[in-house]
C-alpha cells in the first residue's frame, strides 16, 4: 500500500513543475548587476573619504616621523616587553587555574562541580575592566596590610588570570570530553587510577585539541593587558597602551597611539595566523 503511494507522488512530480518563463533577469544577469552595484558603492565611499579628509592635518596628528622615532627603543625594550610579561604571567596563572576549574567541573563530587560552575558563570559575565578595578582597588581596601606578591606584575597576573581562567576552564573541559571514552577504559584496564589516567593519557590528548582555542585566548589576553592602565603603574611598569597614551598627552599628538597600535598588531597578527594554521591542521587530522 505505502509502496504504491510513494511511487504515485514520484511520477506526478514532473507534471507540477512550472514552465520556465523568459521574463525579468536571468541568474547570470542578476549576479553581474549585484556585483557592479557593490563595486560602485565601494569606489564612491573611498572617493568621498579622500576628498573630505584633511590630509595635512591627519598626517600631522598621526604620522610625525620624528615623534615616532623618539619612542624607540623604549617602546620595544620597556612597553612591549611589559605587555608580553603581563600577558604571559596572566596566561600561565589562568591556565593553571582554568585546568583546576575544568577538573572540578568534571568531578564526581557535587560541590566541586557547583563551585566551578558558579566561578565560570561569574567571571565570564563580568567585564575584564571591573575585575582589574576589583584587584587594584577593592582587594587592598578589603584586606588592608595584605600585599599581592609580585607588586603590579602579581596584580596583573591575578586579574588577567581570573578573567581567562573561566574561558580556559570551559575550553579545557570540552577538550577533555572530546577524548574518546575508550582511552580512559583502556588506561583503567591497564591498572591506571582515574587520576593517573587523566594526567598521563587524557589531558595530553585534550591539550592537542585545545591548543588553537588557547592560542586565541592568548591573543585576547594580549589586548586585555592594556587594562593595566587602571591599576596605576610606575614609569618602569608601563606597557604599550599606557606608554602610548602618556606620550600622546605630553606631546598633544596622536602619533604615539598609532605606533603603539602597530606594536600590538606586530604580535596579534602573526599569532592569529598561527591559530588559523593550527585549526586547519587540527581539522585535517580529524578527517
Amino acid at each position, binding site marked *: 500500500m505505502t509502496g504504491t503511494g510513494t511511487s504515485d507522488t514520484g511520477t506526478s512530480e514532473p507534471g507540477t513543475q512550472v514552465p520556465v518563463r523568459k521574463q525579468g533577469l536571468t541568474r547570470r544577469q542578476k549576479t553581474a548587476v549585484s556585483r557592479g552595484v557593490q563595486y560602485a558603492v565601494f569606489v564612491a565611499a573611498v572617493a568621498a573619504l579622500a576628498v573630505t579628509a584633511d590630509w595635512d592635518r591627519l598626517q600631522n596628528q598621526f604620522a610625525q616621523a620624528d615623534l615616532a622615532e623618539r619612542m624607540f627603543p623604549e617602546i620595544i625594550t620597556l612597553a612591549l616587553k611589559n605587555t608580553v610579561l603581563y600577558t604571559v604571567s596572566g596566561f600561565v596563572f589562568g591556565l593553571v587555574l582554568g585546568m583546576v576549574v575544568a577538573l572540578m567541573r568534571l568531578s564526581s563530587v557535587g560541590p566541586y562541580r557547583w563551585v566551578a560552575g558558579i566561578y565560570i558563570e561569574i567571571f565570564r559575565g563580568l567585564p575584564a575592566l571591573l575585575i582589574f578595578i576589583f584587584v587594584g582597588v577593592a582587594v587592598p581596601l578589603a584586606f588592608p596590610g595584605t600585599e599581592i606578591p609580585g607588586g603590579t606584575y602579581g596584580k596583573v597576573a591575578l586579574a588577567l588570570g581570573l578573567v581567562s581562567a573561566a574561558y580556559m576552564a570551559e575550553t579545557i573541559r570540552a577538550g577533555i570530553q572530546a577524548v574518546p571514552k575508550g582511552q580512559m577504559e*583502556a588506561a583503567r*584496564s*591497564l591498572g*591506571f587510577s582515574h587520576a593517573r589516567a587523566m594526567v598521563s593519557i587524557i589531558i595530553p590528548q585534550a591539550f592537542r585539541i585545545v591548543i588553537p582555542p588557547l592560542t586565541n585566548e592568548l591573543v585576547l589576553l594580549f589586548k586585555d593587558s592594556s587594562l593595566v592602565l587602571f591599576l596605576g603603574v610606575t614609569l618602569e611598569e608601563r606597557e604599550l597602551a599606557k606608554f602610548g597614551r602618556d606620550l600622546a598627552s605630553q606631546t598633544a599628538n596622536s602619533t604615539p597611539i598609532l605606533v603603539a597600535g602597530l606594536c600590538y598588531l606586530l604580535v596579534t597578527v602573526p599569532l592569529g595566523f598561527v591559530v588559523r594554521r593550527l585549526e586547519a591542521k587540527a581539522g585535517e587530522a580529524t578527517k
Partner: protein
Amino acid sequence: MTRPEIQTKDLHKSFGDNEVLRGIDLEIGRGEVVCVIGPSGSGKSTLLRCVNLLEEPTKGQVFVGGTEITDPDVDIDAVRRRIGMVFQQFNLFPHLTVTENLTLPQRRVLKRDKAEAARVAAENLARVGLAEKADAYPSSLSGGQQQRVAIARALAMGPEVMLFDEPTSALDPELVGDVLAVMRMLADEGMTMMVVTHEMTFAREVADRVVFMDGGVIVEQGAPDQVIGSPSHERTRHFLSRLLDPARAEVEETADRAGKTE
C-alpha cells in the same frame, strides 16, 4: 577442577530498567580458553567488562585468581594489573608511539625502570611480530597491526588472565588471521582467556569451552564441537544458523515475520 581463575556468582547488571545480565554463574579454570558467543545485545560485552569492573555489577560476586574483586575494600587498580583487556576498537594511545604505548603503563603503573620497560616492550612487540613498528605512531598502522600492538600492550603488564571483546570485528577480513594467530599462540602458551567472538572457526579450534549467551543468561555451554556442532537448544541453533549462513537466515526471518502478521 582446581581453584578457578575467573568465577562469577549470580552476577546481575542493570542499566536503569534494562536488566542486561540476569544471574551469570561461570567458572574458568587456569589455562582455559573460553569463547563467549551470542546475539547482539545479549550482554557479552557487559559480562566481560564486569570481570575487570569496568562495569560495576548490580548484584553478585566476581572472583579473579581467588580474590573477590567485587569486595568494595579491594584495590581495583591492583587487580586490573593482573587482567589484560583487548577492545574491539583497539584503543591505543594515539599521542604515543608503539613502544611508548607499551612502556608508559609499565612505568606509571608497575613502576618499572626505563631499561626494563623498554626490554619488556621490545620482547612483546616481537612476540606479536611487530618489532619493526616500534617507533611508528598507531595512526600509521593497519587495524590488524594496531590490534596486535594492543595485545602486546596488555601482555607487557604480565597479566594472568586476558579478556578479548570482539578483537577482530573492526578489522578488514584479510587482517583477521594475523590477530587470531597471535591469540592462538597465547592459548597454546597456556594463557587463561575469555574471548567474546563471532569467529566460529577460532572457537571450534582453539576454545576449550564455548558459552552461548542470550537475553542476559547462559543458555548452554560445553565443548565447542557440542555447542557449535550439535547445539541442544533451539535458540543456539537459530543463532548459529544465522551466523553461519546469513543469506539463508534472512529469507527464513522474513518468512517468519510474514507468518506472524497474517
